[in-house]
């Protein structure tokens, strides 16, 4: 029983960043912009949040206060949103190949934080540990970070926004048939900008969760593929919030299992670590259900 509870909470913790990122990706892809840069956005958000919190702590002489991690979270979201803006400008305004542009951001996310870390901490791979982490919430049988709770509460919100509001209808129209949406008076360009920036902000929040919620510092490449798995969860979840919830829970469970099995003598950890990725490939190959992307995804829009 104890093991099951541990596994349950571990699953929640692992699924939360995937869920936040995938919900972000949902906006972007539903608007017709492939966002392979989610991985990089997580990293930029994680670095920004950890560095912000650390700088505040240094400036205030190690103050521990309620507001500090929330400022970190906010900065993480803003930086994620700015990276989203870069992706949006490249792929919407300049009609860049969206995958190439996203790849550029992912590569930058491996290098850029190191340069800043070197200047601040004389070290290219980790930031200083922070004391102000995002608060925990007690669920009766265990505690989780408040962002885990927020991530799961966001699912119905996103569903409502996408499927029950005029804005959501327009967003989906833009991703399915931008010309038709434009004819109906929807500003395709603005919708896409909003969606991509929103996806960057959510990925940035996921990154902040990793660096100042789940852990207490930024580590180079700490996302370890979360952005790509979130993308796969998006496909597996058929670009639907509840589908995405199920997919991220499945992937989160696989990761939690990998952690639980580590050090045990059931399976070698290195093998178990590969399981989420193998699972993703099986999903993509359609062994576990087919899914259809938004019709206009990946195509630049020309008026």
């Amino acid at each position, binding site marked *: 029983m104890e093991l099951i509870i541990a596994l349950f909470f571990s699953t929640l913790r692992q699924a939360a960043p995937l869920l936040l990122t995938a919900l972000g990706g949902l906006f972007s892809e539903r608007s017709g912009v492939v966002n392979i840069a989610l991985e990089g956005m997580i990293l930029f958000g994680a670095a920004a949040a950890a560095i912000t919190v650390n700088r505040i702590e240094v400036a205030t002489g190690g103050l521990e206060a309620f507001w500090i991690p929330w400022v970190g979270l906010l900065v993480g979201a803003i930086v994620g949103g700015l990276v989203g803006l870069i992706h949006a400008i*490249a792929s919407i305004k300049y009609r860049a190949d969206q995958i190439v542009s996203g790849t550029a951001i992912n590569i*930058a996310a491996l*290098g*850029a934080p190191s340069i800043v870390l070197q200047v601040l901490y004389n070290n290219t791979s980790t930031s200083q540990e922070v004391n102000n982490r995002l608060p925990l919430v007690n669920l009766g049988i265990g505690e989780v970070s408040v962002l885990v709770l927020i991530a799961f509460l966001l699912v119905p919100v996103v569903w409502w926004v996408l499927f029950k509001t005029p804005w959501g209808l327009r967003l989906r129209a833009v991703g399915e048939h931008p010309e038709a949406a434009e004819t109906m008076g929807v500003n395709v360009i603005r919708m896409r900008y909003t969606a991509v920036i929103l996806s960057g902000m959510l990925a940035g929040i996921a990154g902040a969760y990793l660096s100042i919620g789940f852990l207490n510092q930024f580590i180079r490449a700490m996302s370890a593929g979360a952005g790509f798995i979130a993308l796969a969860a998006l496909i597996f979840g058929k670009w639907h919030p509840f589908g995405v919830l199920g997919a991220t829970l499945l992937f989160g469970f696989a990761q939690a299992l990998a952690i639980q099995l580590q050090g045990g003598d059931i399976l070698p950890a*290195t093998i178990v670590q590969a399981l989420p990725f*193998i699972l993703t490939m099986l999903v993509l*190959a359609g062994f576990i259900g087919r899914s259809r992307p938004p019709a206009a995804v990946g195509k630049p829009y020309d008026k």
Partner: protein
Amino acid sequence: MGRYLFLLTGLIVLVLMILSPWAVPMREFDGTGYLLNPLGAMNPKGLTLPEGLSFGWLGVVFALWVLLLLAASVVVFLPDAAIRARALYVLGGLGLALFALEAYLFYQAIAAANEAALAAGARRPPLRRYALSLGAYLGLFYSLGLLLVARMQLPGGRAFLVRLRGVVVPVVSLLLAVVVGAGVVAILRPGLGTQGVEGLGLRELIAGKLDLVTYTFQILFSPILNLPGIFNSLSFATPLIFTGLAVAFGFRAGLFNIGAPGQLTIGALFAMLAGVYLPLPGWLLLPVAILAAALGGALWGGLVGWLKARFGANEVINTIMMNYIAASVLLFMLAANEYSFFGNKVTLPFKAEGFEGRSEEIQEAARIPSMINILAPNSTFSWALPLAVVAAIGVYYALRQLELGKRLLATLAALLAGYWLGGALPGIPVTISSALSSQLLNGSFLIAVLALLFYNFYLFRTSGGYELRATGLAPKAAEYAGVNLRRKMILAMFISGALAGLAATHYVLGAGMDGTYRLKTAIPSSVGFDGIAVALMGQNTPLGIFLSATLFGVLLAGGVSLNAQLGISNQIIQVLQALIILFIAVGGFLPRYFTDPLRAAQVETEAKAEQEARQAKSSPIAGD
């Protein structure tokens, strides 16, 4: 509009010339320099130059530059295009001459001062770190810009640039990335020699920043100045050629292979298994090990191709997943010896003794010799390789009439004959410095050159390659013409993976990682991502890939000294690569006729029509 932009550029150049150091005759190891400027030298840390060194000519040269800038600004407003072009050509030429003069005077003065000091009994030359700096380079760039603007004034100028778009877009992207990278460096680091010095004026602070930026890029490009540096650069470039080819091959077939890191890893694993464990005769072992590297990568890539062909699974995400799986496989094989599966102990033989995750040593016969040992075995320069290359090129160009297959076979024969004959000739004894003999460049570089040739001939000279490119450009048209798209997809990923896998020959069989003939878990598989920048920058052409891989090789080699000298992380290279990819993706912010082939063709057609109309006017047909 264009003219005012030109004036604005001239103004910026002038302001920067006033603010920036023109030359640095002396520099401490920490980068602090003595900054020469026409309006007076800047020397915040109080370095003393040797006596008798005078740079009075700098003021004269600066005055000439101001005149040149003014003249150019007037000339662009001349009404007649032909005269305008001619005048700009002349000014550009004068600028180049002026820059050459500066360089001559500066290096002459330095050499004279050093000689004088040595003659006076100094043990070492007093000036060891010196170079022209931003102010002088600005003149050079401005002059080159003038020549380009001059060409643009003549008829068909725009079409000329559009025709060269394969060069224009990458070069503009590179320049933009350099500017942004310079901005990042300037923001993050204090100016050279200005930290901790009280009472500096704004001019000194700005000059310190500009000096920092210039010196950063001077260090990054410094490996091209000496032979060990060139070897080092090519050693960094070798795996980039392979991964660049792998990504480019995918692009040509319309596939985006982000899986080069994983393919490289599995290729390295296969090469290690063959190189360590295969009990083959010596002459056979090396070729088999090389093929094993290719096969490992090919299978890893081909699997993704098959998944796409059979199930329509997106290759982008699948190749990324395969990267992580490959990393796990590598760790599983080499990070430990003992594992338990459901309680049963399993022992793997692959990890060698010791703390580090590494394989056993590759057998002697499977090792690729270092480049120095190929060029000059036993400190004797050998004619084998040079003669082989010359013979092969000669035969290839001599046999133009033959069909391609026979021509290539004859070339191969000439290559081997040249190698054998050259090896038999008496060599020239040479002394090899330890800086050179310690370089990790190895025979894998030659395999990379062969891979470039394969890419060139397969894609552009065979029907299979033609079909592959057709698949990439217009899959539906290719299918209608009878191409089996699914087979092409699998084949493309198979070959792409093989090319990435071959990069392992450099790291494992050639000891290109750290000089040991082993596979280590620390193998830098992320060069697979660098291949994306190489392929994009090289516009998927063989020559372009070679040049951009070499460029990145130089930068990576320079990044090591940058880290050591200025404390700037060599991750700056990665950021530069990312910026280049991003800028190429947006077409260098250039007008769309540079990136859209249809619009480019339109520009060229219009220029042609214009030219024909002009010719018709100048030679009117009799009786018309």
